[in-house]
């Protein structure tokens, strides 16, 4: 197995990008990453793209060759592959790109993630999101994606005494971070009171507990670490990837306050990278809802089970605290173009490890982690990154 590096990153602004089409945002991020990597484009051996539901959102399938074509690679006839794992599509696309380079099958690979969610109405977009849950045994009875997470939150409060305020503090923190990120969908701070008084979506979760619907795309260029210096002065090593799975429906998991898929993915990734949770300086975790971040920091091993709410309240996960979590603003403030999320997380970690994160820079960041979840936890993907 060869060591693999990221030599280029690119990202569009996240939000309601009504003036740009799916292919335009895909191209924008892809070209930015190619330019950032300092390659001409001729070196590219393959393209991977994470996307959850272009068919439902924009009535277009077969999007990998579409993006390859419009970034100017049609003549090269390279393999272009779409990867789908609901909101973990981006993270999983990165894993497959990493394995392709690591195994020696490909040398230079572009991996992107893209989603265009605002061409359909809000109600329809939320119904599409709920398709990552079990349609026949959850959604059909009226369970929404927010509703399923609300049930996790309610149980976490019951078992561990997590408070409504602690949930809200996740959103306050991530908006504070997002305010420092020029690419974020929401670049303004919010107060605890605003979160607590916001209209209910699914109790106990209100509007500010939920990540938004977004358009956006992010992209990375990967190559073997050995040749990375040829292209880049500051390549970032992908130390490992790990993926875990679980029952599709939330009700089939005996402990709904724990995501076993996250635990397994993290264990694999940490073991291969020879790291412990305490070695991680900066992490982008999957906060589709405020409760999701609390589960994530527990299941990734940053804090003990049940103490995620308290840790958030104590500021353990704030920028330049014990572990800086979601410095980009997370899905909550940076935005949630579902298929792009896993790649955008990696872009943020690369910027942090390069020391290019400007106002939200984590001091002396050397090891980073990304955590991307599909559905209510039937898929989880973890990557670990390191300065070279």
């Amino acid at each position, binding site marked *: 197995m060869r060591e693999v590096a990221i030599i280029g990153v690119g990202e569009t602004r996240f939000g309601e990008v009504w003036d740009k089409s799916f292919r335009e945002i895909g191209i924008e991020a892809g070209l930015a990453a190619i330019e950032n990597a300092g390659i001409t484009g001729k070196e590219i051996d393959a393209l991977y793209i994470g996307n959850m539901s272009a068919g439902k959102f924009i009535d277009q399938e077969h999007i990998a060759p579409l993006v390859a074509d419009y970034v100017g690679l049609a003549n090269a006839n390279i393999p272009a592959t779409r990867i789908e794992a609901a909101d973990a599509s981006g993270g999983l696309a990165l894993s497959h790109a990493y394995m392709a380079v690591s195994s020696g099958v490909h040398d230079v690979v572009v991996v992107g993630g893209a989603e265009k969610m605002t061409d359909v109405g809000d109600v329809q977009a939320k*119904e599409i999101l709920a398709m990552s849950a079990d349609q026949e*045994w959850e959604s059909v*009875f*009226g369970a*929404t994606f927010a509703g399923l997470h609300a049930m996790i939150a309610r149980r976490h409060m019951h078992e561990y005494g997590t408070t409504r305020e602690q949930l809200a503090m996740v959103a306050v923190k991530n908006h504070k971070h997002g305010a420092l990120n020029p690419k974020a969908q929401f670049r303004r701070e919010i107060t605890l009171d605003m979160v607590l008084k916001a209209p209910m979506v699914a109790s106990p979760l209100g509007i500010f507990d939920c990540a938004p619907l977004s358009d956006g795309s992010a992209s990375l260029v990967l190559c073997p670490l050995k040749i990375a210096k040829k292209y880049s002065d500051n390549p970032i090593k992908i130390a490992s990837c790990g993926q875990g799975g679980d029952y599709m429906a939330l009700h089939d998991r005996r402990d709904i306050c724990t995501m076993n898929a996250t635990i397994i993915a993290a264990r694999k990734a940490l073991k291969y990278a020879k790291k412990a949770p305490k070695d991680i300086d900066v992490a982008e975790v999957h906060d589709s809802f405020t409760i999701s971040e609390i589960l994530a920091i527990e299941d990734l091993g940053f804090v003990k089970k049940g103490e995620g709410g308290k840790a958030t309240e104590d500021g353990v996960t704030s920028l330049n605290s014990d572990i800086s979590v979601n410095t980009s603003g997370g899905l909550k403030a940076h935005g949630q173009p579902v298929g792009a999320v896993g790649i955008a997380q990696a872009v943020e970690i690369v910027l942090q490890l390069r020391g290019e994160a400007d106002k939200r820079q984590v001091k002396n960041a050397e090891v980073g982690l990304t955590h991307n979840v599909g559905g209510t936890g039937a898929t989880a993907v973890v990557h670990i990154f390191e300065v070279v």
Partner: protein
Amino acid sequence: MAIPRFWRETPSRYNLIGTKCKNCDTIYFPPRLICPKCHRKSIGKLEPIKLKGEGEVITYTVIHDGPKQFEMQIPYIMAIIELDEGVRLTAQIVECESNEIKIGMRVKSTFRKLGEDGKAGVIHYGYKFIKA
């Protein structure tokens, strides 16, 4: 949801029919063809079993922002319920006020209309739960 896709699952949705693994006696709902505990040994050994439809609330939420199909019911209560046979499922709790619902509350199943495919479409039926 397409009509055939809904119709296929009607026996389980109408009558709470699950499956029991004859190899390890574990009961599953919805029905499964393979027992996740016994794997290969369970092939051909999963038999239908009618569940009593009584159990308790493991967790719940009150939904204020729901899909079109459920618009008229908002706000409505969704819960994960553990039936006395040990299986869990996701269902609506009806005839219960938002401030009455609690974790641990005893509930029983009832046969109700779930929704319909548009104004002139097929009406779907299945289980909901009420206070026991």
